[in-house]
């Protein structure tokens, strides 16, 4: 349901008709008497267009376009100065990390038993007293390791070099 203000505005602008119009004028006779005044006001406002034309329109436009141009130049200058934009910074960081990891793995002490067999021997030596079926002795003079397996048809999987 329209408020009084909405009804009055619609009535003044000729947007009420039929029963709505009759109802409004019946219920608000004092406001109806003011209609002439409001219509004169409307006429005054509409017919006394006091707003000036835009003086120097081309200059007006050129100032706007100059400002847009200056903003673009400043933006491009900023882009050129900051070679390291966010994407480039991210890639640079990734490269540095990659180089760092590469250097780290290149210079960390290598396990002298890098040969799978050496690793195997080391494992065996570690277990030489733990597992009675596998015995290993080290002969320093001959510089060899003797692995003695007893009662085994084959090496346990965890000691199987080819497993």
């Amino acid at each position, binding site marked *: 349901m329209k408020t009084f203000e909405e009804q009055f505005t619609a009535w003044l602008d000729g947007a009420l008709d039929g029963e709505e119009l009759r109802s409004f004028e019946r219920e608000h006779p004092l406001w109806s008497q*003011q209609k002439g005044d409001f219509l004169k006001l409307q006429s*005054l406002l509409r017919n006394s267009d006091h707003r000036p034309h835009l003086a120097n329109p081309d200059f007006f436009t050129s100032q706007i376009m100059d400002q847009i141009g200056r903003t673009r130049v400043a933006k491009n200058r900023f882009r050129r100065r900051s070679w390291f934009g966010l994407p480039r910074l991210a890639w640079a960081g990734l490269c540095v990390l990659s180089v760092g990891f590469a250097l780290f793995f290149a210079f960390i002490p290598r396990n002298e038993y890098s040969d799978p067999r050496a690793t195997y021997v080391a494992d065996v030596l570690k277990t030489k007293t733990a597992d009675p079926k596998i015995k290993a002795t080290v002969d320093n003079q001959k510089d060899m390791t003797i692995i003695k397996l007893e009662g085994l048809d084959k090496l346990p999987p965890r000691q199987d070099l080819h497993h």
Partner: protein
Amino acid sequence: MNEIDGRASKLQAGQSDSVEPDDRVLVTRCQAGDSDAFNELVVRYRNKAFMMVYGMVQNEQDAWDLAQDGFLKAWKSIHRFKGESSFYTWLYRIMTNVTIDSLRRKGIHGETEFDDRIAPANVEPASRTTPSSDALPYEKLELRDIRQRINDAIGKLSPEHRAVIVMKEMDDLQYSEIAEILECSIGTVMSRLFYARKKLQVLLRDVYENL
């Protein structure tokens, strides 16, 4: 050619609410970064924008600056224009917001402004809302004087009431268009018109009665 016609500036008269083809093409080019296309839009709408802003601020220099600010804002946010309304409606909205913000920053709220929440039962039809200004009773007013009186009267309205008066009485926009520009309901537009007209009625009675 008179490109300034308050009647003719009625938005999209006889057209749909969608973007005019020419404007649509220009906007698309603007969104791709083509400033020449924006230059064309500025040329197309600079007068209407200026006049709308002037209607609210009543000062040429301020209107010039604010209209330029409005166009610059439009350029910066052109990528946000989706074509749901006409380009001019969208531009008009930016201009209105820029102008209202400026008026508010200057502390302009409207002298003894009607509170929109006051029930109309408390308002007598013939009541005065402000002390009457110096009038020139029973004298034929010069056009210059009339314009000054209108300017002064509009200057006493709040930014929101100025906006609806300018859009309705000078630019002859429909309630729905005004509501779309101000992003409020049609009922709010009509209510603001009521109070703005009531106030102007009192301020300008001696002017329109002596014409």
